[in-house]
């Protein structure tokens, strides 16, 4: 029977109030680590959404707005770019490649993007990784589609399935383009970017769907899939286009030229820089969250202090008995502090477990709503430091009741003053 075993048995005897304390520490830990982790994962995922694209061009708009709708598929463009303008920009000597994209449609809750097969060639993410296929290949034909991994998983698609695209972002029946089904020819591997939640078709395919729509409403003439193919399916306008330059040193010059293009108002953004700018705005919120978490930890520690102080009263008889059989004042202090240590360690372990549980649960929901993938990596050095700080904080706080118990046990003597 040593001090540790006495602490454990004594604690088990008073488990209800101690468990509540453990829980309050756990919650503080969840908040502190959760905020830090989410912030870092979100930042990483966010910044890694697109790579190796020198410029993104859309109709004149704020840079953040353009970034969000073109890359994250959040929000909408207010205007489009004419096909002529796109072609004349794309013809510039400084530009090595372009990938036009068209947004606005949806498929059963997932966004639809029209683009050229070059998209699969040039879109990179997470430190220059290209898109890869889980099954199938890129589209070739007008009525072929490639879907992202989440689309395939949630809607149980396989290569060869036929799907229907809806107009606008609401899958209401009246808006179905029923007569023109598309065939799934490729399913992409998971990227952790909004691409996972996108259905990708050719620009011609999108044109074919809309061929009998005028200004958003069905016109009197209905054309079926075959008939549509007879028309010229070059789009009249696109939502935005990605640009790769011959020489990255020309980035600013080309960006300036596009922004000042006389025939049509456009905005060109440098994705890397706009991502950074956007994150900078958010960072103030990060700081506030961290401060609030700090306060929650403080509350948790104060709660622990209150509980341990009250246990001193509960344990008066116990301490007197221990003193009478030979425990010294320092033993009493160690007993109190051991319990504090046990409580805080249990709280930290519970907190970390709760954190990962919550992360695992919340991950798909956040990916759905914000296009951000929270990884489940282990605690990084800063977060490990947070845990150590919590434990140290609790031990320091535990010195107060420990010391009180020490003094009391010297004064009380061996008789029980109940």
């Amino acid at each position, binding site marked *: 029977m040593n001090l540790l075993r006495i602490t454990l048995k004594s604690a088990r005897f008073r488990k209800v109030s101690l468990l509540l304390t453990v829980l309050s520490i756990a919650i503080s830990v969840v908040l502190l680590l959760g905020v830090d982790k989410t912030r*870092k994962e979100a*930042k*990483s995922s966010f*910044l*890694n959404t697109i*790579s*190796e694209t*020198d410029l993104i061009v859309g109709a004149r708009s704020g840079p953040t707005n353009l970034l969000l709708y073109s890359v994250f598929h959040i929000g909408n463009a207010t205007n489009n770019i004419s096909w002529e303008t796109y072609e004349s920009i794309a013809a510039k*000597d*400084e530009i090595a490649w372009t990938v036009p994209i068209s947004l606005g449609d949806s498929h059963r809750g997932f966004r639809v993007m029209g683009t050229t097969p070059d998209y699969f060639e040039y879109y990179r993410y*997470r*430190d*220059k990784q290209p898109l890869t296929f889980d099954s199938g290949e890129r589209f070739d034909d007008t009525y072929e589609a490639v879907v992202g991994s989440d689309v395939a998983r949630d809607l149980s698609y396989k290569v060869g399935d036929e799907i229907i695209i809806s107009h606008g972002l609401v899958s209401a029946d009246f808006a179905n383009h029923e007569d023109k089904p598309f065939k799934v020819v490729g399913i992409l591997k998971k990227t952790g970017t909004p691409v996972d939640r996108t259905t990708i078709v050719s620009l011609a395919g999108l044109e074919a769907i809309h061929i009998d729509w005028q200004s958003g409403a069905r016109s009197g003439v209905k054309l079926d899939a075959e008939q549509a193919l007879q028309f010229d399916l070059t789009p009249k306008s696109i939502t935005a286009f990605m640009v790769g330059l*011959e*020489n*990255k*040193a*020309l*980035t*600013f*010059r080309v*960006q*300036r030229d596009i*922004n000042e293009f006389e025939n049509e108002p456009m905005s060109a953004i*440098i994705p*890397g*820089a706009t*991502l*950074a700018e956007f*994150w*900078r705005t958010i*960072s*103030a919120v990060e*700081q*506030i969250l961290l*401060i609030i978490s700090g*306060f929650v930890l403080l509350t948790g520690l*104060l709660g622990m*202090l*209150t509980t341990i*102080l009250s246990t001193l009263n509960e344990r008066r008889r116990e301490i007197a008995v221990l003193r009478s059989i030979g425990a010294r004042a320092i033993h009493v202090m160690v007993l109190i502090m051991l319990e504090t240590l046990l409580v805080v360690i249990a709280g930290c372990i519970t907190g970390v477990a709760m954190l990962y549980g919550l992360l695992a649960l919340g991950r798909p929901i956040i990916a759905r709503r914000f296009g951000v993938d929270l990884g489940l990596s282990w605690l990084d050095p800063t977060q490990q430091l947070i845990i150590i700080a919590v434990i140290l904080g609790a031990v320091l706080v535990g010195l*107060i009741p420990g*010391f*009180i118990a020490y*003094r009391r046990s010297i004064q009380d003597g061996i008789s029980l003053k109940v």
Partner: protein
Amino acid sequence: MMTGKIMMRLKQLQKRPYIAILIVLSFVAAACSSSTEVSANGPDQINASPEYGESLQDWAEFNGDDFKPEIPPMPGYEPIVWEDLVPAGFSSDEIYAKYADQLASIEAGSPEANALYEEMQGEYDGDAINVELDGEKIQLAGFISPLNYDDDIITEFLFVPYFGACIHVPAPPANQTILVTVDKEDGFTIEETYGSVWIAGTISATSTTTDLATANYTIAGDQRGIYEVY
């Protein structure tokens, strides 16, 4: 007894936690506002963040005479300035000198003046490249426009002489824009790019080998840091 006093104070706190929280909150708010200032400037900058279009020199001057940021000297690496990237004969000073007399004789803001400026701009060839720098190990300070991220670290960026080369100022020409790549361990965080930084590495000065001959400076970075008072 000391413990008695501690007990008493704790009991008071328990009774009026709101006061304690208010006091701490106000301290924190004060600290927070000043810290956001600091972080907006980058971790170690001591003064206002650079204005859009501010060059390194402007910004250093703005911060006063005592503020003379330096790059820590490194053996084997030669510190250069942005003008060094422009070969002889093409620097803005030289061009200006050529036109100095003409400029003196016409009215500022007049159509002739504008035409003259256009001509001067034409002379200034942003693609003229200083090939003597090719392969040299250099150090240079400037501002970052991020290109590529590895997790949240910037591993590839465009390096320019003035801040926020976006909208309000002329775009830096190709020979004042350097494509820099660094390893992840040497990479920058976003916060570090809110002010000026320095890099040290091997610069290569080439022209691109397409129809368009343009200046193409790249640096493979070995070392880096925040450009501050050293």
